């Protein structure tokens, strides 16, 4: 039996009063516990979709369904709680004047969850940082540590879906491996569903079960990770994209 968590139907997003159409008729369906990737080059509309799903931009046509129900224009707290986002740039996604404790306490208070300190300590442990990080400011943390805090901020409200906007593209390769491993472990342990955006096909193939390739605001095709690895694709653009990302080093 299928258990769809997130679904987009004919999602069209325009900017500047329809002058620019960033996303045209996007359609996808994500099952519970699945990791779904959106891939494409800059300006293809992948991040726009993510922001619309998150509720940062509710000015779209078509519909986004969460657990079978259409999300309203004005999102309620339970919608925000169910879907949280991790941003691309760990240097821009943490408030420069707030210490980790305050960053993590805010969502707990806003959602009225209570039991603040226990949740903070637990989520910090979960992302591989100890409680001693509570009283640090972002500028005292490395890029990888910041991204862990950003993940902790998303996780502390116990969401069902994590929206990942290029979570490792601003990080070094070695740190990228750590963060990707962390995300893999969290999905397994907490039973999360991921919607991940990236321009790196190797990262997407590593993290996701299914991938949608986007170009000029349209989803060209949807392929499974094994098909990506085997090069079993239908569109020329996908093939070109794969060829450009092929690793040059063979051990």
């Amino acid at each position: 039996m299928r258990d769809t968590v997130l679904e987009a139907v004919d999602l069209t997003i325009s900017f500047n009063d329809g002058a620019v159409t960033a996303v045209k008729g996007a359609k996808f369906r994500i099952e519970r516990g699945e990791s779904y990737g959106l891939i494409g080059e800059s300006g293809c509309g992948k991040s726009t979709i993510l922001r619309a799903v998150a509720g940062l931009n509710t000015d779209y046509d078509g519909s986004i369904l969460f657990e079978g129900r259409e999300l309203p224009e004005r999102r309620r707290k339970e919608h925000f709680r169910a879907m949280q986002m991790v941003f691309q740039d760990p240097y821009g996604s943490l408030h420069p004047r707030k210490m980790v404790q305050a960053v993590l306490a805010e969502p707990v208070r806003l959602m009225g969850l209570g039991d603040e300190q226990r949740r903070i300590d637990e989520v910090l442990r979960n992302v591989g940082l100890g409680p001693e990080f509570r009283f640090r400011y972002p500028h005292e943390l490395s890029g990888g540590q910041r991204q862990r805090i950003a993940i902790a901020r998303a996780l502390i409200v116990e969401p069902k879906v994590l929206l990942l906007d290029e979570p490792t593209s601003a990080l070094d390769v070695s740190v990228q491996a750590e963060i990707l491993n962390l995300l893999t472990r969290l999905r397994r342990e907490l039973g999360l569903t991921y919607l991940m955006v990236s321009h790196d096909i190797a990262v997407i193939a590593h993290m996701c079960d299914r991938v949608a390739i986007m170009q000029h605001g349209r989803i060209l095709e949807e392929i499974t990770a094994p098909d990506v690895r085997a090069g079993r694709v239908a569109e020329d653009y996908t093939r070109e994209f794969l060829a450009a990302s092929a690793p040059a080093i063979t051990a």
Partner: protein
Amino acid sequence: MTDPVLTVENLNIHFHGSARTTHAVRGVSFTLGHEKLGIVGESGSGKSQTGRAIMRLSPPSARITADALRFGRTNLLAASEKQMRAIRGSEIAMILQDPKFSLNPLMTVGKQIAEAYRTHHRVSKAEAKERALAMLESVHIRDPKRVYDILPHEVSGGMGQRIMIAMMLIPEPKLIIADEPTSALDVTVRRQVLSVLDELVDRTGASLIFISHDLNLVADFCDRVLVMYAGRVMEDLPARDLGRANHPYTRALLESLPRLDQPRAELPVIRRDDTWRTGALA
């Protein structure tokens, strides 16, 4: 054997901050012939600072020492600022990550390329324009006449970087330092820009230092690779042997990349070894 294009011996760069001094580059040595040399490393490895030191474009808080820093016969450490100005651009060119910051936003791209040529060659405006148009054509810009008259904000990232390459290569420098020239570009555009750079480097016979964090890119594009970590050269090897690298850091770096051809449940994480920082070099 001919003279090396560039000789770097025991290069050290210290940064004097308000609180403490950082040793950013620690005893880097290499010689560069007529080849494409890649310098790879993670952020903070000192790869960019090495490139800047060669151009003598380090920030004012940097103190640079070296047993030798020679470009051909010129001692770059002892050269006056006036000599350096003559060398920069005409002898050594630098291509940076984002063309948006390197191009003058108020001047048409063609004029900028023609000016770059005229600063180093005494020619008429008309001739400089001819050369600039020819150069735009050689970086595979389809309609050079139209592109000549547009402003930098009107071009895409990939075209912008090709324009930068045209501008930097028109004085026919002997050495080109490219610092992450394609990291701001999309994968499919990246190829195009690299092949343009490759073609021009081959044609003009220039040497190239290609600074990048991307191992695959460097392996694909360069002849030789220096792997840097914590300000030191960990390994110096031919690019085609990168897959058979010896140093544990290089190996770990390669291992930690997700790969399309080898699915893995978990990515190996680098276990940093303190001897990489302090120990004797192989």
